[in-house]
């Protein structure tokens, strides 16, 4: 097996939802030993999703991670958490300050457990300040971070049915941890890092923040039209809800584009002769292009445009991603088992609900390729972690299991 970049690094994940588990998914794929600590007494709500196959969503977050059950609210549970942290390089959580204090695990204390420990705390709107301690969900962050006001139509905000900035946060989390590991390698020092979901979304508005300061410009919601390029949009194609995007960014591409659509007379109109003309008359331009695309297959439009050197791409749906020869050539998706949650039973007894596909980390490292593999059951690694790592005897593990400490 190929070596992994972060081999030998141990990470404790104590958190839920999307942004934190995705960061540790990445770290696990890079070879870190990630131990996800959770309790069956307060399960991650995302076990309910998706509706059509509950449980399969977990494959998006759990591959390659070790998993232990532990109830830190019990005194012995808290002690075991401390022992785990002492055996680790990195501790990552997105729980609130109040909850962590209640468990007897405030950050000052956690940091004192081990020299060189790297602690990452992912927060919502931040730990301090007027909104300090406020909770956030990524789905709403597109509004808080102004993204939804920068796209869309004049009437409607451009809203994505996605937990927008959670993903940015996840990569900041991962970046911070690897940076801190590198710093520790050099200096021997650990550190404490906070990553708010809010800030990680706001940084994706960058140029607009400067534009407002410099020019008092507030971004217009211009549908798919670009401020500087035209044509630029998603054009309707044959079939139901089928679209192909086309973006013309210079004169060369405009000429090539006109050729593909058969050099119609209208394209020679002075209304479209230069980029500023096209931007000014984008509405008419778009409707003419839409007439041309609407009788054609989206893939055909894309291929014709690409052949002529015009940037284009269909609006993919799940079926397109599934059938994509390109993604197959990268081995982007792989198939594995997932489980059906039964909150009354230990995680080890949850049945296999089926198999489905999940994605590999989209970073291809030539010497230390990212790993991929199955997700572990909830509590699957109790014996390894508590026995081998912490040196508990089997009878002690059994006892603590019976007492509900490992629930």
């Amino acid at each position, binding site marked *: 097996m190929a070596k992994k970049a972060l081999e030998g690094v141990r990470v404790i994940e104590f958190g839920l939802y999307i942004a934190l588990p995705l960061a540790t998914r990445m770290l696990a794929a890079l070879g870190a030993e990630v131990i996800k600590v959770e309790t069956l007494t307060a399960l991650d709500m995302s076990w309910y999703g998706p509706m059509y196959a509950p449980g399969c969503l977990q494959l998006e977050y759990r591959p390659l991670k070790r998993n232990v059950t532990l109830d830190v609210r019990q005194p012995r549970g808290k002690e075991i958490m401390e022992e785990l942290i002492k055996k680790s390089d990195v501790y990552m959580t997105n729980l609130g300050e109040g909850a962590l204090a209640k468990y007897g695990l405030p950050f000052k204390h956690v940091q004192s457990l081990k020299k060189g420990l790297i602690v990452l705390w992912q927060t919502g709107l931040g730990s301090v300040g007027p909104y300090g301690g406020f909770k956030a969900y990524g789905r709403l962050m597109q509004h808080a971070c102004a993204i939804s006001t920068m796209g869309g139509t004049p009437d409607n905000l451009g809203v994505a049915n996605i*937990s927008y900035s959670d993903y940015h946060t996840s990569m900041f989390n991962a*970046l911070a941890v690897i940076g801190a590991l590198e710093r520790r390698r050099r200096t021997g020092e650990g550190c404490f890092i906070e990553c708010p979901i809010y800030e990680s979304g706001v940084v994706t508005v960058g140029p607009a923040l400067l534009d407002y300061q410099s020019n008092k410009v507030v971004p217009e919601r211009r549908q798919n039209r670009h401020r500087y390029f035209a044509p630029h949009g998603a054009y309707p194609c044959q079939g139901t809800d089928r679209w192909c995007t086309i973006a013309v960014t210079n004169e060369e591409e405009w000429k090539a584009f006109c050729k593909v659509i058969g050099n119609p007379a209208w394209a020679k109109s002075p209304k479209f002769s230069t980029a500023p003309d096209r931007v000014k008359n984008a509405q008419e331009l778009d409707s003419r292009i839409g007439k041309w695309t609407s009788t054609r297959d989206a893939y055909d439009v894309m291929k014709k445009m690409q052949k002529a050197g015009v940037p284009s791409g269909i609006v993919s749906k799940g079926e397109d991603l599934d059938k994509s020869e*390109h993604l197959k050539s990268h081995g982007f998706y792989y198939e594995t088992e997932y489980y059906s949650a039964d909150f009354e039973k230990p995680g080890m007894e949850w049945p296999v609900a089926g198999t*489905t596909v999940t994605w590999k980390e989209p970073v291809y490292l030539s010497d230390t390729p990212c790993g991929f593999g199955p997700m572990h059951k909830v509590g699957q690694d109790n014996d390894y972690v508590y026995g081998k790592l912490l040196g508990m005897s089997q009878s002690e593990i059994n006892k603590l299991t019976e007492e509900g400490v490992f629930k």
Partner: protein
Amino acid sequence: MPEKKKLQGPVLKSRPEGLVLKSRPEGPVLKSRPEGPVLKSRPEGFLPKYRVLDLANEKGAYCGKLLADLGAEVIKVEPPCGDKMRLRGPFFKNEVHPEKSLFFLYFNTSKGSITLDIENPAGKEIFIKLVKTADVVVESFPVGYLRSLGLDYPKLKKINPKLVLTSITPYGQKGPLSGYKAEDINIFAMSGYMQLVGEPDQAPLVLGGEQTFYPGSQYAAVGTMAALFYRDNVSKKGQHVDVSMQEAMISYWQEQTPVPMWQKTQENNTRVGAMDAMVTPCGLYPCKDGWISLCVVTPQEWDALSQWIYEVTGNAEVLKDEYKGGLISRMPVRDMVNVLVMEFTDKLTGREIFLEGQKRKVVVMPVNDVPSLVNDTQLGSRNFWVTLDHPVVGKLKYPKGALYSDAIGAPARAAPLLGEDNERIYCGELKYSKEDLAVLRTTGVI
């Protein structure tokens, strides 16, 4: 674009005004905002010893920015006429000028700049000298371009075995689409994200702010740092880090499980507008002065919200057992729940709902626009901004980044002028004389 049947989301219909933006409550102006961190006392940072040669265009510039803002020495290698990003709007005071592109200024903080024509044989030779001094080269050229110059990874590896080459391209280095041309909107569409943005029965929409320029670079920065960590810890060798912007963007909406859904139901995700299709209540709700967004995931959050709704509206319906539960339990009664929530949000201002909601542990978020971010109290209170002085555009405040830590410094300098570091690198390091520099400049090498 041919508008299909105009169909607005259920909430938005009843708001002819449209948006909160006009009547947005003024965020306190931060007159007393402390100045950004003083550069002298800047912590060492995460990557102080690494040298990154940044050849990337807009598709990969954010990767170099992330590394530079964390302390690496990132040197942009620009063609003598300047990076094309310099000609990309918006511009400072709307003046089109290669040193005034705000797009360039944002994506190139903390970096240096040298000019070099790597297509010119003499320029290529200089580039090879530089590669010997570098830890990382970041590039986002069309696939095959570096090979055509004899500067692909196998060649660079021979020159400097410790080098990490990071490539950020729309579809990665291999596969049938690797040669496809793509702008932001095309990558956004091909990733499937676009299928999820906008109103049902209307065209799919691209998100504002050219969002595909971020995820690929974030993955690239993570992969680059992992490669450096492995090199210095274990192998003493570099490697090639290859990132597909399409796949990065696919992973940024994975919660909707597009492919499992297609395989299991033969259905595709689609646009649902301002309201979440699954979680209820979750989305945009009208309030006294515009819009507010809120989302209820746990049973406790619903209990808190429903109690509050009852206190405000006096409508006991909302307390009924059939509405209780978490995440998706209110799916069957979605319309009724949304009506109950709207009846409540309509009675209060956005700010009231935001502050009181958070106090009650209900996740409520304001609908901010760009001006409200620039003036936001929370960001202002946190040292989020750093004021950087640029020789041409002067002082502007820039986001410091998303990470807060005593171990991490702020961006060190504003984006570089074209060739600002030529003398330092060419004369100071590579020991060219000023006369040589004049020759190189006159012959178009730098």
